[in-house]
């Protein structure tokens, strides 16, 4: 079982559970306390069946990204379940979509080696769950895990 967590959207938290390479369970919850919700989910989980947890480390909402990453880091360290952190940029660039993410307040995140003129925009790109899962699956097969002791959210001003 592989579990993917995306808490980068300030309005909702997403949990996708994959079994035998297929999406088995999808949960999206809005306007909740993130760590309490994740805790309710994982307290019921059978850790022996979880091969790894993939977490979207951002960019996104500072608070919700940090809460979801911090929770998964604590869980991974305590349970020894491997964790893989992936950025929204990596997921989108894999799918060859334009590297533009909604930063809220009429702004966008842009990743590019060329110079971009950042404009007011209403562009919004939804993370493709299947692309997210395929990245996690690849890294799982190569055992490219992240250390829960050093996994951090991706902050906009670090870009």
């Amino acid at each position, binding site marked *: 079982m592989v579990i993917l967590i995306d808490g980068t959207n300030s309005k909702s938290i997403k949990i996708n559970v994959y079994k035998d390479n297929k999406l088995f369970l999808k949960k999206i919850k809005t306007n909740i306390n993130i760590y309490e919700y994740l805790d309710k989910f994982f307290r019921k989980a059978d850790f022996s069946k979880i091969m790894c947890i993939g977490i979207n480390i951002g960019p996104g909402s500072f608070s919700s990204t940090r809460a979801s990453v911090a929770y998964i880091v604590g869980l991974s360290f305590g349970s020894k379940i491997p964790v893989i952190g992936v950025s929204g940029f990596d997921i989108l660039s894999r799918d060859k979509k334009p590297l533009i993410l909604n930063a809220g307040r009429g702004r966008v995140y842009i990743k590019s080696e060329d110079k971009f003129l950042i404009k007011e925009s209403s562009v919004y790109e939804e993370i493709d769950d299947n692309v997210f899962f395929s990245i996690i699956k690849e890294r799982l097969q190569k055992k490219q895990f992240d250390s829960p*002791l050093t996994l951090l959210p991706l902050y906009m001003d670090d870009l």
Partner: protein
Amino acid sequence: MNILGIETSCDDTGVAIVKDGFHIVDSLLSSQDHSITGGVVPDIASRKHMEVLPLFTCEIIRRNKDIKIDKVAVVVNPGLIPSLLVGASFSYGFATGIKVPIINMNHLLSHIYAPQMQNPSIKYPHISLLVSGGHTQIVKVLSPIKTEIIGTTLDDAAGEAFDKVARMFNLGYPGGPVVSRIAENGDENRINFPRAMDKKNNYNFSFSGLKTSVLYFIKENKDNVSKEDILASFQYAVVDILVRKTIMVARDLHCNTITISGGVAANKRLREEFLKYNDFEYYFPTIDLCSDNAITVAGLAYHYE
């Protein structure tokens, strides 16, 4: 019972293991330097907690491999929300990871517990003055986990007033210890700064007027009165009202025991002034338990079922 306590309510990252509520097994504490910004920036503090907390938890577990953690206790309020969020989120994940219960803790009760933890035979009920950079309260302590608020500040905390007055003289942050050190060489009776809400049966505090009074005094008298005298007089105005109100509460509620906690409890002048009222029994924590820490969090958690 061994409890792992976690504290991230402001800019100190603390982890500690305490056995049976009183015996300190181990502790780690990291303080951040916010002097460059003149105060704590919540987002920066939160980022630092994300970096430090997992490493500290790993280290304390490694150092105490033979200790079984029975519960995890984490401060969830009050404090800076970005900072609290990191501590709470990590702690919930970690507790679930090691399959132990999690206990939500109150930062203020953890401070108030400090003198109780270091003096297990303390009597209840007693009066506690909690005085720090973020909080100023007088509470009646009925048990380690049960208190009644008797008085509180209506604006600035006492420690906050120290920090802001320190900034008026460019003394850096945190300002409390520097103000106290300079005040030692001043005449605390030189200026009679106002003591707000200084009426019988008024158990609340207010320090913003005092702070403003100091600001205006400096503007008008900077060349006539020394910095040492201004700071000594300011410090005494704070200490005087803190002590007299606490004594008033203790007398009105017929409690002979008084504890003092929080960062300002480390202030030497405050301790001296209390001891002038020698018809009470006083308990001060050691200096290391005056500031934010995870030791009292882990200790207090023991008393919750």
